[in-house]
């Protein structure tokens, strides 16, 4: 990818987040999109590329009155928006379009106009996983964790630490769903969901959305907001079935996507000032730190427990509070991207002073897919 040739010039979340029973999922898309267009000083007439996941980009384009020359409906779960950013950057570089709108919205909690989730009993998952009682992410995403914990001697307390540290970040964020401090004991005393996972190790279920607007870097300086440049991107996928993951202690999709993004950006790990790792469950940041190469295998939990990722630590991680404490409407990747953009603009509620490079790393499905975006606020 051509370095720093594309930038984010508009970014916004829905006006409200959390519980929004008076708005359909489609309107949540529009609310986020209208906020992002206002942020960028644009209208629908200025947008010529549209991407979304879950819902159809056709529906979003038509609802907003956009006539695109480029459409991307890549839908590989919660990291789809990282893939959209990557595809949009390529499309803009190639001249397929000039100004791309990427939206996410989900009425995850209120389920107003939300899609029904069903699995075909003839699909691979329908035949070889669903009959054993998997219901939703808490009984799927969690399955590899015990193997990881045994292999590396990681304890329930270690996993609980992830949630405790992210609550510290959430406490600094007025928009976070949960802001009261918690202890390891609180996490370990919370309701059992799917052993070894307890309630406070699992992400929230909320309503909300977000939108991004991207254009070429040479146009970006003419927009009202400080441009946030795309430095490198990666994507990959592994398996639609958690049971068929190659190794339960590491995500191949994470490793491939992360390496690609680092290589494209031409940066070292020590260059990274701020990191977002999609945390649907408390073990995700541990896998992410290792698979992205910030820690050796088996050392991610200790890295978090020792305070490296907490406020004041050397690698601020999930500074919005994450899916565990900030919000999680279903496909959280968009919110990780939003927080990276806020950090690069210097306007995050828990701003990392002087941060110049931020990475947003997403997961899709249950370790099924991955996308990684490296942002920078320094002009080309």
């Amino acid at each position, binding site marked *: 990818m051509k370095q720093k040739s594309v930038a984010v010039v508009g970014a916004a979340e829905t006006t409200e987040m959390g519980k929004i029973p008076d708005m359909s999922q489609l309107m949540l898309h529009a609310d986020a999109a209208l906020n992002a267009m206002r942020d960028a000083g644009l209208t629908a007439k200025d947008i010529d590329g549209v991407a979304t996941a879950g819902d159809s980009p056709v529906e979003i384009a038509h609802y907003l009155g956009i006539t695109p020359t480029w459409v991307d409906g890549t839908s590989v779960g919660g990291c789809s928006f990282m893939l959209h950013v990557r595809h949009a950057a390529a499309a803009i570089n190639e001249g397929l379009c000039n100004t791309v709108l990427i939206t996410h919205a989900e009425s995850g909690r209120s389920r107003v106009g939300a899609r029904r989730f069903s699995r075909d009993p003839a699909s691979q998952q329908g035949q070889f996983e669903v009959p054993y009682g998997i219901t939703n992410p*808490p009984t799927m995403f969690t399955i590899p*964790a015990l*193997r990881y914990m045994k292999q590396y001697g990681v304890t329930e307390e270690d996993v609980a630490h992830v949630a405790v540290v992210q609550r510290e970040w959430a406490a600094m964020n007025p928009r976070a769903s949960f802001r009261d401090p918690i202890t390891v004991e609180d996490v370990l005393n919370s*309701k059992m969901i799917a052993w070894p996972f307890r309630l406070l190790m699992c992400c929230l279920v909320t309503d909300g959305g977000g939108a991004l607007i991207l254009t070429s870097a040479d146009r970006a300086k003419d927009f009202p907001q400080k441009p946030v440049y795309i430095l490198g991107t990666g994507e990959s996928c592994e398996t639609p079935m958690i049971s068929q993951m190659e190794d339960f202690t590491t995500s191949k999709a994470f490793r491939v996507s992360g390496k690609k993004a680092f290589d494209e950006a031409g940066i070292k790990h020590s260059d990274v000032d701020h990191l977002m790792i999609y945390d649907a469950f408390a073990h995700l940041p541990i896998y992410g730190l290792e698979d992205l190469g910030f820690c050796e295998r088996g050392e991610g939990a200790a890295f978090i427990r020792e305070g490296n990722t907490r406020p004041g630590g050397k690698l601020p991680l999930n500074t919005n509070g994450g899916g565990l404490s900030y919000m999680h409407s279903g496909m959280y990747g968009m919110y990780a991207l939003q927080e990276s953009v806020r950090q690069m603009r210097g306007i995050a509620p828990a701003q990392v002073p002087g941060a110049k490079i931020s990475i947003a790393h997403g997961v899709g499905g249950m370790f099924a897919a991955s996308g990684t975006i490296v942002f920078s606020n320094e002009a080309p």
Partner: protein
Amino acid sequence: MAEYNRPLPLPTPETRHFWEGCRQGELKLQRCTACKQSYFPPRPFCPACGSRDVEIYKASGKATLYSYVINHRPRPDFGTEPHSIAVVELAEGPRMMTNIVDCPQTPEALQLDMALEVTFEKASEEISLPKFKPAKG
């Protein structure tokens, strides 16, 4: 037989031999005649080398416990008590999702790497599900 009200698999042409094997009390795997790799889930070609020259064979039914959770969320069709959702590693190499049965559904009883053997749970005239129980001896 009590009425079975859990979701059931719908076999496809590529998987029918597997489910037919389960119905007859046999765990069927496939392996590549070219590269000898065993694999699962079923498909009529080798995922390792792409060869269509594959054979179906009866697996040993022996496995070890690779990882699992104990679901505490309501699943009335699975009863009122927490139940395991596990991934086992078959002696032949491939892994598959299953439930561990004939065993307390507790972390103490369910130790990773414990030896298991297949057992079949009849769900309908067409479908028997492969489940795993602690190996004897």
